[in-house]
């Protein structure tokens, strides 16, 4: 098991370094790093000092190594606007983004799996067909526009839910979370539903396909031959077999949710990392931009790693195989 983890860690490390190289070279080769790392407001003297200080007059590979060294120490530059370390700014907003992404994931799973199973168990019924049509809509509709329409309907016209922002927060395990209060949930609801739509459609289709495949397997028939009740067959025999592929896909998709929250946070003015990014782009706060990109790539790789490990725990066949390997 440890060999497996180490191997995966090494792979993850390679990817992170590679991505940092791409981001860095992109910034260095395409944009002007002087512009990117030094505020436009600085005067001649400050500029010179900054250039020397940041090593911008040094050759490319030295700069990259400096960048890496700083990055590993957690120093990704200071924000022009807030005059705080960029990384800190991002970390402050991470709980909000994670809260949103987790809720969206939860919604997708809790609603999607039952719907998908239903569609899979009765493939030719009206219910199933409408669920499947709904799922096509789910991944076709452009998320941001649906969010705007939702806002229009539920906030502006009906006034049921607040249109933007995050609700009151409490501290939970050292993090600021908002789902602990009803008011907080009111703010969380629309953005979470909006973000979940795409994944919901995916979960429904996956679950339905899985159900249709598993239900014809011999072991299901054998369970029936034992006289096991229909509900137990669905909830235990079927579900556990479907869950494994669904969970794997979902785990990988969580990173996608965090990345995509950029859009939802912009629409609903949710104070997370994504909104910070877009604001920073608008305000040309380049260190924050670079810090965000590095952070998100890093996060992504970590999430994938965790999912891989979880998967091997969930599926007993994989676990034992890895152990033998």
């Amino acid at each position, binding site marked *: 098991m440890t060999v497996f983890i180490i191997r995966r860690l090494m792979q993850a490390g390679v990817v992170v370094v590679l991505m940092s190289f791409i981001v860095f070279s992109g910034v260095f080769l395409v944009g002007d790093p002087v512009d990117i790392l030094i505020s436009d407001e600085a005067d001649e003297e400050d500029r010179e000092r900054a250039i020397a200080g940041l090593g911008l007059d040094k050759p490319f590979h030295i700069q990259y190594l400096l960048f890496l060294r700083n990055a590993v120490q957690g120093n990704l530059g200071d924000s022009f606007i807030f005059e705080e370390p960029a990384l800190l700014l991002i970390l402050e907003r991470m709980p909000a983004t994670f809260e949103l992404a987790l809720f969206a994931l939860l919604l997708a799973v809790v609603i999607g799996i039952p719907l998908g199973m239903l569609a899979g168990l009765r493939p030719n019924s009206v219910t199933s067909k409408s669920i499947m049509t709904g799922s096509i809509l789910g991944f076709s509709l452009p998320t941001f526009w649906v969010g705007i329409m939702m806002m229009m309907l539920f906030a502006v016209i009906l006034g049921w839910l607040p249109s933007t922002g995050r609700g009151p927060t409490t501290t939970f395990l050292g993090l600021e979370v908002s789902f602990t209060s009803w008011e907080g949930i009111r703010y969380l609801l629309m953005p979470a539903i909006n973000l979940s739509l795409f994944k919901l459609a995916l979960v429904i289709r996956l679950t339905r396909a899985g159900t249709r495949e598993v239900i014809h*397997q*011999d*072991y*299901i*028939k*054998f*369970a*029936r*031959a*034992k*006289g*096991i*009740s*229909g509900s*137990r067959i669905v909830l*235990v*025999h079927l579900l*556990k*077999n479907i869950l*494994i592929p669904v969970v794997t896909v979902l785990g990988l998709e969580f990173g996608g949710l965090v990345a995509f929250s950029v859009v939802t946070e912009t629409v609903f003015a949710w104070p997370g990392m994504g909104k910070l990014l877009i604001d920073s782009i608008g305000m040309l706060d380049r260190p924050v931009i670079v810090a965000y990109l590095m952070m998100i790539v890093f996060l992504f790789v970590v999430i994938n790693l965790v999912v891989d490990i979880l998967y091997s725990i969930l*599926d*007993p*066949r994989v676990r*034992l195989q890895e152990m033998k390997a």
Partner: protein
Amino acid sequence: MNAAGSRPTLQVSHLQTSFMTKAGEVKAVDDISFSVHPGRVLGLVGESGSGKTVTGFSIMGLVDHPGRIVGGEIRFRGEDVVDATEQRWQQLRGNQIAMVFQDPMMTLNPVLRIDTQMIEAIRAHESVSRKEARQRARDALGQVGIPSPDERLKAYPHQFSGGMRQRVSIAIALLNKPDLIIADEPTTALDVTIQAQILYEAQKLCQETGTALIWITHDLSVIAGLADDVAVMYAGRIVEYGEVDDVLDRPLHPYTYGLIGSVPSRNRRGVPLHQIPGMTPSLLNLPPGCAFKTRCPHATDLCITAPEVSEPRGSGRLIRCHLPMSPTGSITELSGISAS
């Protein structure tokens, strides 16, 4: 067949099961009748496609769309179960009628532990504590000869060999002490030695507990050692039915004759193996009249009409044939049949 006049555990009369496919109605089981008495073993023999597995599923009510039972009766201890509700079926299955499937690889759910799958079979029919159910599962595993049952209970199916998995399936079938067990080619995928063991234990079991057993197979040699009665199936119909020693010594139907003759041990060395010429016809394309006509060395114009079930005088057996073999002919005449 008529053991001490006791009520048969299972009585099947004129059963018909068909599959409604896009290409037409496939009569997988076309008017078969037989019965099994307590403590007796019935061997159901036939090639693949003869309808024997579908028969087994029909008796369990497990024929799935697009198939269904279209006619006949299945009486389990007197009760007609053809139209039984799903609820009634759930009460019967795994409890009074149990089935052992053919392929041990896919019969057990790969993501659930063995104890889960055994305990649920018990608790579906009786309210006992998990502990007690576990104990019974443990005993059942011991009964089928699986060593260190405690450890084995916690294991997953893929950690077992094929033979062990099949034993587990059999143990599951025995858990609730059913009155009827249907075993569908349970030893086909196994070693010969293990096969022999399982056969022996099956026989012992029936004698001890009075369980009726239907053993579905294509392998005549298995039947010879195990069964009391045998029914030979061909293209969805039973073509010969009688006590096993009788049928094997003096087969009356040309197909049975051919089957026995093609068993390797029955043939002489140096002489080409006897084969029944031709192939099983597709059930969509059965020849009119007797289904065996195209392969039968004795076929005549009479065989254009389908033969009814008849009992040749004095044989104590039922067959479907217009021209049964002579009851006095013995098996050594087989070498006289040409292979063309």
